């Protein structure tokens, strides 16, 4: 009994994925039988490992993605023979394998790895883009309008409404600038200070270009001619209950207007529709939030009942609208001291976004389409 035939038989019998087949084979041992005493047939001589073991391991590691792809290809062919339709899309598989091999490659960068002054690793961030592009195109089917208002170069302050328990809206705005703009740009979001004390998250946020929501940071970024994305509602926006969806909260204390005035950057309001439905927040367990130190502890139809599975967002239909920029160069940087003007502009931005929300809600047939 040779290895290939038993492997093929398994595949026909079970229709398992390649990796599962491999695991099953390993469990059964080299003779193709379960190792529970019924060891029959001739013994396969043990393979002698060639002397430079690390080299061999490196070689196997390097060939693994190709090998895996070959196996998946074979599997998809057989599945098509069996079922008569494409069960596994080869192009998708190819993209997935490519994604992982690229991740390995990027993780092994040495001297050539560079981050900017804020810890932004552009190369790595762009390698993650396929995931977000898939979410953008196929999961939430985002329709974006008015992206031409975002300047092709130079500073600008993007101001958006904030909703959904997790900041997927920020990720989608950032993705839209890559999907819809003729020359893609990275928007640098300002994140609530609290998140920078958390392990993993702080690491991820910095690496992908986000920074602390501090006026000093935003001015610094704008002075470097970057796009800065702010959510003036902050956690008040993401943690609002389902009954209050699409009703904007207070826009901070107008600090974002002061920043825009000081840096002389145009303000571009953005309305995002769809983000409210990804995690309909039914309740907030205050004591648990206090215990964990989080701003809120959400209860949604899926969370915390389903555990981690409950953090999968619902596939609502999204629309993003970029509004015409509000110019700040006519007011001059000294206007940042004028509290009256600051609050007027802040209200103007808020009204624009709120109106945009109503408009886009009307354009949506339902939550899902």
């Amino acid at each position, binding site marked *: 009994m040779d290895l290939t035939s038993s492997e093929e038989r398994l595949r026909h019998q079970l229709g398992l994925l390649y990796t599962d087949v491999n695991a099953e084979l390993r469990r059964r041992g080299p003779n193709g039988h379960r190792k529970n005493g019924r060891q029959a047939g001739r013994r396969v001589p043990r393979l002698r490992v060639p002397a430079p073991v690390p080299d061999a391991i490196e070689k196997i590691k390097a060939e693994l993605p190709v090998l895996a792809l070959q196996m998946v290809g074979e599997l998809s062919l057989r599945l098509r023979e069996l079922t008569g339709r494409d069960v596994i899309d080869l192009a998708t598989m190819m993209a997935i394998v490519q994604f992982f091999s690229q991740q390995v490659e990027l993780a092994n960068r*040495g*001297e050539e*790895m560079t*981050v900017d*002054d*804020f*810890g932004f690793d552009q190369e790595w961030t762009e390698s993650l883009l396929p995931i977000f592009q898939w979410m953008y195109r196929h999961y939430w089917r985002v329709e974006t309008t008015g992206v031409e208002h975002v300047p092709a170069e130079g500073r600008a302050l993007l101001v958006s409404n904030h909703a959904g328990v997790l900041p997927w809206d920020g990720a989608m705005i950032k993705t839209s600038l890559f999907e819809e703009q003729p020359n893609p740009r990275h928007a640098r979001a300002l994140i609530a*200070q*609290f998140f*920078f*004390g*958390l*392990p*993993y*998250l*702080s*690491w991820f946020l*910095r*690496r992908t270009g986000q*920074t*602390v929501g*501090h006026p*000093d*940071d935003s001015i*610094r970024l704008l002075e470097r001619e970057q796009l800065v994305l702010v959510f003036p509602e902050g956690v008040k926006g993401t943690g609002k209950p389902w009954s209050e969806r699409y009703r904007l909260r207070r826009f901070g204390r107008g600090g974002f207007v002061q920043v825009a005035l000081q840096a002389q950057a145009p303000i571009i309001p953005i309305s995002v529709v769809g983000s409210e439905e990804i995690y309909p927040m039914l309740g907030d367990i205050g004591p648990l939030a206090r215990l964990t130190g989080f701003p809120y502890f959400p209860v949604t139809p899926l969370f915390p009942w389903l555990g981690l599975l409950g953090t999968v967002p619902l596939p609502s239909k999204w629309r993003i609208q970029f509004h015409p920029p509000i110019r700040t160069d006519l007011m001059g940087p000294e206007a940042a001291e004028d509290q009256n003007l600051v609050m007027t502009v802040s209200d103007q931005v808020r009204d624009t976004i709120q109106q945009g929300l109503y408009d886009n809600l009307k354009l949506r047939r339902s939550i899902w389409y």
Partner: protein
Amino acid sequence: MYGIDIDDPKVALERTEFVHADTRHSLLTKLVRGLAVDTVVHCATLTEGRNSHRTVHETNVIGTMNLLAACSGADSPVRRVVVKSSVAVYGCEPFAPSYLRESMVDRAQVRDFLANDLREMEQLVQDFQVRNGVIAVTLLRLGRRLGFHEVTPLGEYFLLSRVPTFHGFDPRIQLLHDDDGVEALYRAAVADHAGVFNVAGDGVLLLSQAIKLAGRRQLPVLLPFWRAIARSELRVTGYDMPASIADFLAYGCVVDIDPIEREFGWRPPHATRDTLHDFLERGSNAELPSSGPQEYELSQYLLHRRRARAAR
């Protein structure tokens, strides 16, 4: 030029006269007036290394208080005071802005005793400036050094064969080259630059990047919370990590060095990356000159500069 320390100088001093003294007030007053000192460079502050809370407090706060008291008064010949502080004064907070400016020191107490004592010391220095308007007081907040001659605890960290890091954190770090620290002290000593200035290298490195550049392996084994547990874990393995460094390695600390460039017309020339490279190169030689702490380097440096100028 006079050097003052409680220990003997560790390098040969040529044009510097050495005085054995500590920072007791009565002694210093006599010295300052007796020698007609016009410029005081105060480097006897503990900013790196493993010192007990008590030592740090006695040296940084009480020592500085005595020295400043000796320099003050209507009959004081002193016209310029330079005080060495450290960026540790900011503490390392996860929510700090990406670039700390000189004004961003909180007056509130923090966990780290070094930061607390430095804050108290700086307050003394600022009070001194207010009371003695004619004296130009420069406070230099030196960045974290790896230590080319005496390896600092942070330098030791990068020389560990397996470098333990905090799980889930990869902060941005900024380092100061020893030579740049000395040059900053020198520049402050020879011209009036009153004010507080950060001194650190240009650019940042991620901790993981720095470990990779050092050719070491990163081991993310330290708990992200409860520093004390992580530090006692490390002590078992033979590396004693000071508390101020533990926070630095979790959250990082990066300061803005534009103000010193504006005032001094000089920017520390060694970037963070170069500093690490230099450190590793010299460290691998294993032939470290047995030189004294920074204040002696300063005197040497001053001497060198003066000679070079005389030769011209």
